[in-house]
């Protein structure tokens, strides 16, 4: 079930809120678990059993890891737990890709697997892994209550599109959490802002991307317009989903960590990755990069470590070579930045920003392709490959058609609106009116979103390959 749907907003959510707040404290997790399983089963009825199996498996191994007397036994249990958990991800997400490439390389024919990818499997697999590793490291005790652990893994706000919530970040709140009008109010605000980002901005930008794919009147200008709109679409869609997840979490008494912090104002690609999909970046940092030695190693090892992390980061996003290329694209630039570019980039903020935005845009062209060939073709189109004209009638039209929205999106991707809000809020003369206006604007956003959804407007789910 998508957050951006009539079914979720006006059927599922009100019912869940009533059940949750009517339930006595000891039963709140049970309610959350049951509604989360229903939420997941709604679109993927069969896959719910895979998730339940993974939960039970890690519940048992979490306790075994904790209870093991020797470090070696702990390591064995952890290894089994990690291999067991990853095997689900490897089979459902990557088996088809491996078979396809094996066939292509060896020429030995193998039947296409056509395995359906369970939605959210990459997110919940990484959450479970963080739990097992943290128990192994002794950072958290193993969870003895399977309801609590299952609630953590299946919690519907962050189940299908993140953020990747670490067990240790919410362990205490899973057992005891408080609810208040203040946190519910913050949650509502965050949820509606995220909903608006997804439905009003990202989905509408997505229409331009659809028009680009369908056009017969291509040009360099249209490629660039697509690149900008796709980059903004991904940001508003993904950060919108994270906002909704964080907002819903707040309503239910959880504090999820931020997942996006204005990534497009970054002055380097390294900084971009500290602001973009923070939960994934920090996961790879803590569970892959640091255990390999991080940056406190010799240069060749450092380069190898970066290669592994960025190869995996790219591959995590989808079982296609363009995602691997996308990860390796960042590997090249982040390595260059670490070795040579840090100081030059510090010299001019403007040049640093231009450099960052330019390569972010290029990277998302690689990301947007369905395969490596398409990715190369899309990047080539930006530079006129294939002899395409500089402009075309349709590109000029679409520029006029989406110009206002692109400006709104660019401004919305900066801290400017938030700063204006904070400024007006800090002034005595305007503070009261800002509070009133805020509630009215949020209501108007919700009504606008409802209007878009009732119209059946374009409403894609972009994470089906994650």
């Amino acid at each position, binding site marked *: *079930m998508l957050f951006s749907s009539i079914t979720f907003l006006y059927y599922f959510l009100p019912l869940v809120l009533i059940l949750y707040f009517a339930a006595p404290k000891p039963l709140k997790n049970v309610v959350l678990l049951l509604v989360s399983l229903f939420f997941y089963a709604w679109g993927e009825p069969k896959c719910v059993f895979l998730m339940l199996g993974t939960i039970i498996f890690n519940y048992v191994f979490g306790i075994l890891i904790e209870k093991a007397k020797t470090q070696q036994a702990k390591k064995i249990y952890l290894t089994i737990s990690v291999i067991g958990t990853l095997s689900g991800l490897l089979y459902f997400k990557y088996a088809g890709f491996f078979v396809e490439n094996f066939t292509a390389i060896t020429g030995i024919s193998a039947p296409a697997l056509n395995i359906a990818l369970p939605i959210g499997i990459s997110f919940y697999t990484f959450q479970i892994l963080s739990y097992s590793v943290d128990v192994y490291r002794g950072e958290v005790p193993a969870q003895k209550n399977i309801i609590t652990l299952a609630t953590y893994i299946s919690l519907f706000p962050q189940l299908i599109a993140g953020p990747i919530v670490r067990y240790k970040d919410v362990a205490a709140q899973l057992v005891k959490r408080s609810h208040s009008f203040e946190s519910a109010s913050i949650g509502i605000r965050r949820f509606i802002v995220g909903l608006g980002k997804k439905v009003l901005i990202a989905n509408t930008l997505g229409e331009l991307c659809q028009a680009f794919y369908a056009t017969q009147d291509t040009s360099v200008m249209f490629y660039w317009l697509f690149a900008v709109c796709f980059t903004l679409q991904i940001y508003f869609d993904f950060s919108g989903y994270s906002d909704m997840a964080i907002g819903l979490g707040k309503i239910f008494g959880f504090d999820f960590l931020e997942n996006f912090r204005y990534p497009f104002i970054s002055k380097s690609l390294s900084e971009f990755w500290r602001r973009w999909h923070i939960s994934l970046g920090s996961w790879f940092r803590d569970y892959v990069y640091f255990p390999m030695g991080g940056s406190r190693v010799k240069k060749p090892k450092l380069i190898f470590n970066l290669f592994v992390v960025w190869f995996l980061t790219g591959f995590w996003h989808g079982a296609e070579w363009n995602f691997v290329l996308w990860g390796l694209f960042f590997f090249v630039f982040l390595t260059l930045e670490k070795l040579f570019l840090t100081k030059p980039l510090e010299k001019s903020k403007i040049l640093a920003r231009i450099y960052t935005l330019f390569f972010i845009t290029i990277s998302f062209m690689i990301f947007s392709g369905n395969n490596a060939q398409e990715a190369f073709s899309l990047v080539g189109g930006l530079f006129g490959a294939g002899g395409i004209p500089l402009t075309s009638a349709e590109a000029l039209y679409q520029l006029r058609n989406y110009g206002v*929205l692109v400006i709104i999106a660019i401004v919305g991707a900066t801290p400017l609106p938030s700063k204006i809000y904070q400024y007006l809020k800090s002034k005595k003369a305007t503070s009261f009116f800002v509070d009133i206006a805020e509630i009215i604007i949020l209501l108007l956003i919700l009504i606008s979103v409802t209007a878009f959804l009732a119209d*059946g407007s374009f409403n894609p789910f972009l994470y089906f390959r994650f």
Partner: protein
Amino acid sequence: MNNRLKSIITVAVFAVFLLSVSVLCLAMPDTTHSDSERRELAQLPKVTTQKLVSGEFSKEFESYTTDQFPFRDALRSIKTLLAHKVLGKLDNNGLFTADGHISKLDAAINEPMMDHAAERFNYIYNTYLTDNNVYFSIVPDKNYVLAKANGFPAMNYESFIDKMAQKVPNMKYIDICDLLSATDYYNTDTHWRQENITDVATRLARHMGVNLTHDYTENTLDVPFYGVYAGQYAGGVVPDTIKYLTNDTINNAKVSAYNDKGMLVESSIYNLEKAKEKDPYEMFLSGTMAVVTIENPNATLKRELVLFRDSYGSSIAPLFLSGYSKITVVDTRYIQSEYLKAFVDFDGADVLFLYSTSLLNNSLAIR
């Protein structure tokens, strides 16, 4: 405002809003049809184990909740307004407005669809028409005159028509594009206005060696005509007026048609009962009919026309009547080309294939 008070107000406002809308969703009676969109609305799906397991139930339920949402038409109008006024969009739901018209963005040429149409037309030619004079003409979509002139993406109509004409080499192409302007089409619909296309009928007939008379009386339908684009666009729309032309020849014509059971029944050139229904344009030859025969008892010469057509042909067919003793109007979207011999007499008839660019560019329905 006190932070706690603000929080309480926020929670209260959204709790009341969410619950009220939810109650409305559950309490409002379901409707079966959307007049504005001219389509059946999704109904509450039946629960079956197979549907639940396959995920089909959830998909059908989502369509149901969207289609049956309270005050949906009003919300769709709000969405149109927001798209234009707040997001600055020039089009909405693939439609744009220009010169008082609503029109559909449709700039891409779909060559496989053209090939399909050509394959079907050539089959008909090779099977039935090798001894006939066969003509072919294309009705350009109203974007031909609206899109490019108003800065919207436009199909390369010249290229489209050239390609299509080449794909049916045994038919003589008659160009009518230069006769059409924006005023010849309804503002809210895709079709052309019968009262403005007498010159088109004259040119087509002249190329087939027939002269038409123009002693028409213009009649106005007393119901507002919200064309097919009015509902899709979902904005404030001024309805069109349908006018239809009559004269003694048309009034005295004898019309028969094969109904959906394959039975020959008496019909009419202008079906005023249809004019009161959801799509008043269907008053012309009663809309979707596979084979309609129009006989002209006033004809002095025996000369027959077989008109292969889409819905544009419904309104122009009566205008050929003064030049022919019999017109057989065929729509191969509703009859398999292989069965035509049983229903249509091609012997010695002039044959005209008259199709719109929009159908040729999306021709799968042609059988």
